[in-house]
Structure formats: structure tokens, C-alpha cells
């Protein structure tokens, strides 16, 4: 399965990619952890591998770091094949999931570790200067002589980051770096990581299962599933033009109505649902009559009204549940044929007509262009 065929224009390989996977597969015994990966990573970008655990994202990262070598295919770093190059010979550094800081060394010794391995060894004062600069970047000035166990989780994370960036790597790999932090710290760290990345211009590659994290930080996201790359694109591209139901379910939330294509052309398709209702939707990747598809409608693209508006198809729904989210209100509604689905209503829209109450009968409607007809053959449990 070639990724290039489906990739939006922005995913075209750059003139000089800093790293590249070409037909890379990795097998662990019976398990195919990475299946024909093709991806070109641009110099200076912030790219995320996003997917559930076991999707192969960590394997991809470890092949860049050199901890795993591909079973087939080629991994390129800076224009050269590095399939079997040992980790310690690669101009790549990693921030480990549980930081893997050396407990027998101080904070400064941890950060200077990479510099001390260089041959010829840099002079002492140069190491000290760089370590200080790195501590400044992660805002831990004055913590040089602390012990690792004296630091909080968030501080340890910063030390791990400083230990990697001080080496000025060509690629900085981040393996679920925020997994162990609480929500508030994670938010802070996300913003900080982005700032640091822009400031240093180092290519960042993040592995995460947290879609919010990937969406908020990345220039591009590479969505993975079962060892394969499903789609690569900017967060907006993935959100607006998901390749299939899996991507639409993974990036943001959506309502899916499963059915079979009745007829289709290059732009539009008509889909018959199980209940007999027919829905119209936009086509992004070609579909053929008879194909199993999902019609995806984002909750914020559905309008609720007490009276039917003209020009669009309206669906008679009953409100089952209401969750007030401040700026938005989330409604769970039920239609006799379509079943249950979510509607996200902005506060603005409610000023005239709402708020709506549980049990109320309303009309739900959306524009035909906001409904996407997506391939469903490999997404049994998305969303």
C-alpha cells in the first residue's frame, strides 16, 4: 500500500529529507510490527506518529534511533542508509518514555553525558557552558548539582529533554514523553516543547497515542494502524479530509452512519444505510457502487432547531442527554432510523433558539458538503 498515492500535496517528499523510510518492514517473530512504511521526514518539521498501542509507531521510532534494524526496506538518515548503524553512531537523540535518566549522576552530569562521549572530548568548560545553556532552555537554571531522585516528574522530563537537545541532534525522537505527567503539566510541556522546537530548528519526531497532543503540537501527523501508515498530513488535512473512517475517528470525534454506496461519481455519493434511509455525501477518495462505507458528520457541523429550516434535509430527533461544556453544549440525540449521534452546539447559536432540554423533539440538519463518504472496510471499531 503506497502512502504517496493517498497523501495530500503537502506530504510530497521534500527536496532533502532529513530522514526517510523506504518500504520498511520489521518483523518480530510472527508479528509484523511495521509493514511497508514509506515516509519522508522534512528538515525542521515537527512530525508525530499517532496511533493506539501496538500500531508500530514505537517500532518506527526505534528504527530511527537504531535500537531496531528493519527486516526489509531502507531507513535513510541525512541521505544515507543507516539500517544497521549502531545507535551510538547516529546523530539522533531520544527522550525516553520514562526518561531513563542516570540515577548515579547529577543533573549536570546527565545532561553532559552525550558531550562527554564525543571524540575528541570537548574541553571541560565548553561542556559546562553547553550544559548551562541547555538548562536555561528547559528553565532549570541552578539545578546542576541536584540528584535525579530529588526532582519531580516534570523536572525529570525537562532534564531528559535537555540531555537530548544539548547534543544538537539532527533528529530528536520523543517516545510518549508526556505520558507520565498530569494533565496541567502536560499542557504546559506541550507548549514549551513547541517553543523549543521552533527556537532550535531541530527536527522533532513524537510518538503518541494522544490525538490532542499530536494535533496541538505537530506540523504533520502520521496516523498508524496495525504496523501500517494510514494517512500522513497536517492536522487540518487529517481533520477535514480523512482518508477513511479510522482516521476520522482518530482525529477528533465524528458521527458515523454505516451503509453501502448506491451510486457515486468523482465528487459525490449516495449511500443507503441499513435502515433504508439514503444519505448524500462528499467523496474524497474514490468509492464504487456496492462498497461498504461510513458517512461521517462532525458533531459541530450539525445544527439543532425547534423549527425545520428550509433547503436541507431535516431529521426529527429526540434529545437524550445534554452536557454543558461552557463555550459549547454537547447533545446526544436519537433519530428513529439513523440511531444515536452527537451534536455540538456553540453558545452563540443557542442564544436565539436554545437551550434545548432532554426529551425535547427537534430538527437536526447538516449541509450535504459536510457529510463525508469514507471507506469502512478496515475500521470496525473506530470512534
Amino acid at each position, binding site marked *: 500500500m503506497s502512502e504517496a498515492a493517498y497523501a495530500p500535496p503537502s506530504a510530497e517528499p521534500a527536496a532533502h529529507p532529513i530522514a526517510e523510510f523506504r518500504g520498511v518492514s520489521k518483523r518480530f517473530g510472527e508479528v509484523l510490527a511495521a509493514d511497508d512504511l514509506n515516509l519522508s521526514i522534512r528538515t525542521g518539521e515537527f512530525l508525530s506518529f499517532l496511533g493506539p498501542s501496538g500500531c508500530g509507531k514505537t517500532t518506527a521510532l526505534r528504527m530511527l534511533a537504531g535500537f531496531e534494524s528493519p527486516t526489509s526496506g531502507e531507513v535513510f538518515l541525512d541521505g544515507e542508509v543507516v539500517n544497521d548503524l549502531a545507535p551510538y553512531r547516529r546523530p539522533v537523540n531520544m527522550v525516553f518514555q520514562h526518561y531513563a535518566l542516570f*540515577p548515579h549522576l*547529577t543533573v549536570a552530569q546527565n545532561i553532559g553525558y552525550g558531550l562527554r*562521549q564525543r571524540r575528541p572530548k570537548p574541553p571541560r568548560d565548553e561542556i559546562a557552558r553547553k550544559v548551562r545553556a541547555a538548562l536555561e532552555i528547559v528553565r532549570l537554571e541552578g539545578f546542576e548539582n541536584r540528584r535525579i531522585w530529588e526532582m519531580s516528574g516534570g523536572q525529570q522530563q525537562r532534564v531528559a529533554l535537555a540531555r537530548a537537545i544539548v547534543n544538537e541532534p539532527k533528529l530528536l525522537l520523543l517516545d510518549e514523553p508526556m505520558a507520565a505527567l498530569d494533565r496541567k503539566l502536560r499542557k504546559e510541556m506541550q507548549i514549551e516543547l513547541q517553543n523549543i522546537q521552533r527556537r532550535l530548528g531541530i527536527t522533532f519526531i513524537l510518538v503518541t497515542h494522544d490525538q490532542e497532543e499530536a494535533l496541538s503540537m505537530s506540523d504533520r501527523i502520521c496516523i498508524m494502524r496495525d504496523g501500517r501508515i494510514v494517512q500522513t498530513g497536517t492536522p487540518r488535512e487529517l481533520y477535514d479530509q480523512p482518508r477513511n473512517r479510522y482516521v476520522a475517528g482518530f482525529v477528533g470525534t465524528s458521527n458515523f452512519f454505516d451503509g453501502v454506496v448506491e451510486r457515486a461519481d468523482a465528487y459525490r455519493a449516495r449511500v443507503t444505510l441499513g435502515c433504508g434511509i439514503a444519505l448524500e455525501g462528499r467523496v474524497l477518495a474514490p468509492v464504487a457502487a456496492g462498497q461498504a462505507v461510513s458517512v461521517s458528520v462532525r458533531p459541530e457541523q450539525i445544527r439543532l432547531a425547534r423549527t425545520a429550516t428550509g433547503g436541507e434535509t431535516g431529521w426529527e430527533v429526540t434529545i437524550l442527554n445534554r452536557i454543558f461544556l461552557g463555550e459549547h453544549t454537547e447533545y446526544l440525540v436519537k433519530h428513529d432510523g439513523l440511531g444515536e449521534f452527537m451534536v455540538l452546539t456553540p453558545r452563540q447559536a443557542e442564544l436565539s433558539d436554545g437551550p434545548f432540554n432532554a426529551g425535547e423533539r427537534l430538527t437536526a440538519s447538516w449541509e450535504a458538503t459536510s457529510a463525508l463518504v469514507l471507506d469502512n472496510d478496515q475500521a470496525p471499531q473506530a470512534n
Partner: protein
Amino acid sequence: MTQRGRNLLLLAPAGAWFLVMLVIPLAVVIIFSFGERGPAGGYVPAFTLEQYANLPARWAAFKNTLMLAPAGTLASLLIAYPLAYYLAVRADPRWKTVLLVLVIVPFWTSILIRSYAWIFLLGGRGIPALLDLIGIDNVRLINTPFAVLIGIVYGYLPLMVFPIFVNLDRLDKRLLEASADLGASPWRTFLQVTLPMSLPGIATGCLLVFILLMGEFLIPAILGGGKVFFVGNALVDLFLQSRNWAFGSAVAATLVLLMLVSVTAYMRLIRRLGAQREDVALM
């Protein structure tokens, strides 16, 4: 009952044992060491430093002990470390337990019997005969310090392997990846991460083996053939053969003192080496 009272009650059995089996005998030894030998052996009360003045008579035993105990500890460490490393880091996890049991298996047989086996191996018809075949003749192994050293390493190896194994087994392997990721070759990773992190295991193993070796008498008796003897052998001789309890006590008290001094010095050294690590209790 107060917390303090409960604590005392719980400590009473160990305290009583400690008093009866350790403090009182040690006091007796010290008292005896200032006494004299009776006409028919045993002990006659007195207060004299004569026994201590006589210590140089057993100089050879002290010299052997003070050389072979550290040498045996060091040799055990050098052989045990790679073994423990292999078991903890490299060995297939499925075989780990089996391999570990194999290290203990020799312990199931008495050290006496195992040492006798070495008499044959080191004797004229054992290893020297094999060396003779390849042209190296006139090698004498049995009844030499080397034979005692081999016996020591053989007998005490598991005691050294275990603490180091446990230590290396708990070592977070991700630290090794982190080190490689930061540009350290496997050898430098070993020197800068694995070795310093396994220091507590090394310290424990060395202490265990060293203390036991200082009091060793069986292996030198069997493999040293009366030519290479430890303080332990001197004590057996003084108490059981020549029945000179007073002099024996002086030798024993001196040995205890030497142990105290060397172990204290050792602990200081280890504490300094491990000073960076508060999270690992060394002893």
C-alpha cells in the same frame, strides 16, 4: 504496652541469642587471651601480655590469611562478575532460572567432599599429568597457595555471583539504551553505567566472601596440606592439639581485631564510592 515495650519484646530473642552466642564467648576469649596455659593445657587465670608478645610465632598464618583472603575475594569477583553479567543481562530469560540453579548445585554437596575432589584434580595424576602431556612438566599444584586460592574461588563463587546477579538483574536496561543513544559505545556504556550501578552488588559480594575467608580453615587444611595454613588452622591447632587456650585466645582476638579494622576501612571506601547514590543502601 507501649511501642517501646513491644519493640523490646520483639528484639528479646535475638538479643538473648546475640548475648549468649556472641558477646559472652567474645568476652571469654578476650579474658583468656590475657591468661596463661595450664601445665596440662587449658587455661589458668592471670594477667599477662605474654600471649600477645608471642604472636609473631604465628606470623605465617596471619600472612597467609591477610594475603589469600583479599586475593581470593578479588579472584572470585573477577570470575563472578562476567558470570553474573551473563546470567542477568545476556542469558535467555527462559534459561535464567536453570542457569542460576546450576550455580548453586555445588552447594548441595559438603564443601569437605568437594575439596577432596580437588585434591585429586590438583594432585600428581590430575592437572599436572595433563600439563605433562603437552610438555609442561614438573608442575606442582597441590599444597601450594595457588591450590588454596583455587579451592577458595571454587567454594565461594556463588556467594559472589548472587548479590551481583540480583543487582544487575534489577538494572534498568533502558539506561543502557539511553547511554547508547547519547553516543557511548557498548564498552563505555559498561564502564559509565553498568559498572557504577552494580557497585552495591559488588560491595555486598566482596564483604560476604572476605569475612568468611578471614575465618576459613577447611580449604587450606585440605588443599594446603599443612604447608599453606590460615589463622583458622592455627586456632584449630592451638585449641584442639596443643591445648594452649590462652595463646589461642590471643590469636583469635587479634583476628577479630584485624577483621574489624579491614571491614571498617572497606565500608568507608565503599561509602565514598557510592556517596553519589542515596537511593541504594549499600549494606
